[in-house]
């Protein structure tokens, strides 16, 4: 096909760095998993204990896959990395395909190129080739590294090339998705749905009778039984499926007009709902998506922690380093672990909160603020709408993270009282998280050019949390992190005073920021 080579070359040049990070990230997942398991369990007895506790944990199985040969390094590596590795190569393939096909088409950037003497299929084929090569590199990197680490060569290649084949499958399904809608965002949505659907099908199948696992490409990948009696024939399913999907995508591409999708674009609302018509309504409509996304993500994050149940010991092993990291308070391993987990979820939630507090700056930079403030909407009221969205969003995200953790624990252990004691403490972190957002708002009011600095306190707090004990930081330095002033409930007793004090600090910072904003120029 004329022009494919040129497109391929341009795409590779444009994507070099992005592809490099994706490939290293996806392959790194396998390699780091293998290495950390090797560090965690030092004796066969530890492997046996871990296997015994994990094999019967339905939550683990739903999360990772069917448990096989968990008393070996290879078996553990395959079990822990296949499902997430498949998701990573799926996402990588989806973004490579999307950015070179539908995104270019939607923006109209490649009209110029298409008008020159190239085949109609050339850009699409070049994009497929880029994704194919990237997936192959991930597979080879995994295979060679694990073999070099000392795992069985055949099984290592089964693990690596299986990932390549899953990536190819998702490349083809992503290409179908790109033909369906005219909007890149919804096409990504559909392609993402295929990936998450594949993961969910095998999760339900693995916990149940296994039928649904055979409906999922990730299930096929895990059916190769790497490091537990390797078999190659499921790879044929993946390659065959990828071929069929690719043929379907090309057929759809051939049938549709340039710039359009197979599914006609659905028109939006011609009139606004009443809820949108105020400053608060506008702020919420802009932030709602982020709140829901983060809440969903942290719910599953919490669920993953909670589903460990009482098997904390098996998971973190006897290593002092991992105990220091995962159990930062109390004498009891389980409550100490959950107190630490809730803190970690709260620190992650602060990512949402700071991004949300910086949203007004983005509105200012892209010119939306000017349009809004030229109406009878007062500045203070406009900013207050965003502050409310940040505060409500933070409470929701923290609460949902706690709910996920409690729900996971309840599902695995069935102990409601303990599950509840792991659920509510996440809300105490409203204090420190809002202090960080208050700092972001102060920057927005005083020095809008420097709002990126709002991330520094979060990075510092994360370092204190992860490495404070390890590096034996002086207490005064650790106290700079607002998270350090709260007891690690449930390992320690809850206290109102620090929460109230932190909320007061957050309020003071935020009010100072709002006053400063009222007095400054808007650009």
């Amino acid at each position, binding site marked *: 096909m004329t022009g494919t080579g040129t497109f391929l070359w341009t795409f590779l040049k444009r994507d070099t760095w992005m592809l490099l990070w994706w490939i290293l990230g996806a392959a790194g997942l396998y390699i780091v998993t293998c290495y950390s398991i090797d560090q965690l369990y030092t004796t066969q007895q530890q492997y046996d204990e871990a296997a015994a506790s994990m094999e019967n944990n339905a939550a683990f199985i739903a999360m990772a896959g069917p448990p096989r040969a968990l008393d070996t390094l290879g078996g553990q590596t395959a079990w822990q990395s296949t499902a997430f590795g498949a998701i990573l190569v799926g996402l990588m393939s989806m973004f490579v395909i999307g950015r070179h096909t539908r995104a270019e088409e939607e923006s109209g950037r490649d009209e110029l190129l298409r008008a020159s003497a190239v085949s109609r299929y050339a850009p699409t084929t070049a994009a497929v080739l880029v994704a194919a090569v990237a997936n192959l590199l991930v597979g080879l990197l995994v295979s060679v590294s694990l073999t070099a680490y000392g795992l069985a060569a055949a099984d290592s290649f089964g693990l690596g090339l299986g990932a390549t084949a899953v990536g190819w499958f998702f490349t083809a399904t992503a290409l179908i998705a790109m033909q369906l809608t005219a*909007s890149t965002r919804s096409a990504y949505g559909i392609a993402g749905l295929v990936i998450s659907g594949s993961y969910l099908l095998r999760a339900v199948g693995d916990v149940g009778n296994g039928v649904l696992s055979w409906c999922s490409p990730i299930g096929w990948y895990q059916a190769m039984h790497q490091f537990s009696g390797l078999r190659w024939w499921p790879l044929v399913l993946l390659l065959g499926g990828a071929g069929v999907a690719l043929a379907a995508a090309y057929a759809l591409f051939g049938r549709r007009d340039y710039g359009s999708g197979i599914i006609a674009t659905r*028109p*939006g*609302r*011609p*009139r*606004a709902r009443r809820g*949108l*018509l*105020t*400053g608060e309504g*506008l702020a919420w*409509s*802009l932030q709602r*998506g982020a709140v829901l996304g983060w809440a969903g993500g942290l719910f599953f994050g919490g669920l993953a922690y909670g589903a460990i149940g009482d098997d904390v010991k098996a998971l973190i092993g006897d290593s002092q380093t991992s105990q220091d990291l995962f159990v930062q308070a109390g004498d009891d391993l389980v409550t100490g672990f959950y107190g630490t987990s809730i803190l970690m979820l709260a620190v992650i939630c602060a990512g949402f909160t700071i991004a949300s507090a910086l949203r007004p700056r983005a509105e200012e930079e*892209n*010119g*939306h603020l*000017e*349009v*809004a*403030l*030229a*109406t*009878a*909407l*007062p*500045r203070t*009221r406009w900013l207050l709408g965003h502050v409310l969205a940040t505060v409500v969003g933070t409470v929701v995200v923290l609460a949902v993270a706690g709910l996920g953790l409690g729900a996971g624990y309840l599902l695995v252990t069935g102990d409601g009282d303990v599950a509840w004691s792991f659920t509510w403490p996440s809300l105490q972190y409203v204090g420190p998280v809002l202090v960080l957002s208050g700092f972001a708002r102060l920057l927005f009011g005083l020095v809008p050019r420097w709002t990126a600095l709002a991330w520094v306190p979060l990075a510092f707090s994360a370092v204190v949390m992860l490495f404070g004990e390890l590096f034996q930081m002086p207490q005064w330095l650790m106290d700079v992190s607002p998270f350090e002033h709260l007891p690690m409930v449930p390992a320690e007793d809850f206290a109102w005073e620090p929460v109230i004090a932190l909320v007061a600090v957050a309020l003071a910072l935020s009010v100072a920021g709002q006053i400063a904003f009222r*007095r*400054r*120029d*808007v*650009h």
Partner: protein
Amino acid sequence: MIDIRGLVKRFGSFRALDGLDLDVGPGEVHGFLGPNGAGKSTTIRVLLGLLRSDGGEVRLFGGDPWSQAAELHRRLAYVPGDVNLWPNLTGGEVIDLLGSLRGGTADARRAELIDAFELDPTKKGRAYSKGNRQKVALVAALASDVDLLVLDEPTSGLDPLMEEVFQRYVDEFRDRGHAVLLSSHILAEVEQLCDRVSIIRAGQVVESGTLADLRHLTRTSISAELERAPSGLDALEGIHDLVIEGTRVRFQVDTARLDPALQAILPAGVRSLTSQPPTLEELFLRHYGDNLESTPA
């Protein structure tokens, strides 16, 4: 409605506005003309209470645009030069939102404008072209019941047909006794729409008056092909850069002196004639010695 005296605005050590005066009264379309970077948008932003003035006096409807911004904004509508819409809201939603934030719009008026501008209100902000984004902002502005329209280069993305629709609505708005402040760097646009014009250069208004007052600023370029060589042109006042090559003639003439110049060439028998209005760039080059190419935007 707008009354600005000696307005100063500094950005660091740079004086973006340096003693600017501007007057706009009811029933008037006021052109605010100047090259990019002269301070047009800065003035508008001070007027909208987005920027705080560093000196001079600014009154909008007799009030202070900084401290009474929200209150005064009930009476005006603003269309920025580069309209940025929220990507997740449809055009219809944006029109309703801006209308409601200004104090409400009439449904019939809204429908009429959407129809006149041939706007599809069901598309999302990210899917609109530049011209269509501008139409959304124009419909939102024209649908509101306000006394003043502030338009910052409002037609830069519109096609000629839509420009005509736009001009019709601006005329109608003015005829109801309202005022319009229209900033532009296109002389022809201002000539077509405005009753009075203020020319801004380096943060100061250098000329202000009706278009007739400003005639002396404009020169028309004429080139003609005649039957015989013309005579007497070089004796006329207001003729510049005259070139006669046999039966061809090229010259520039002060617009106020256009009639005698044409009278002078008519007896020579005109075969073809082209006349070009001066561009803003030529005007500035001639009157102020500015080289606009090197002026930062």
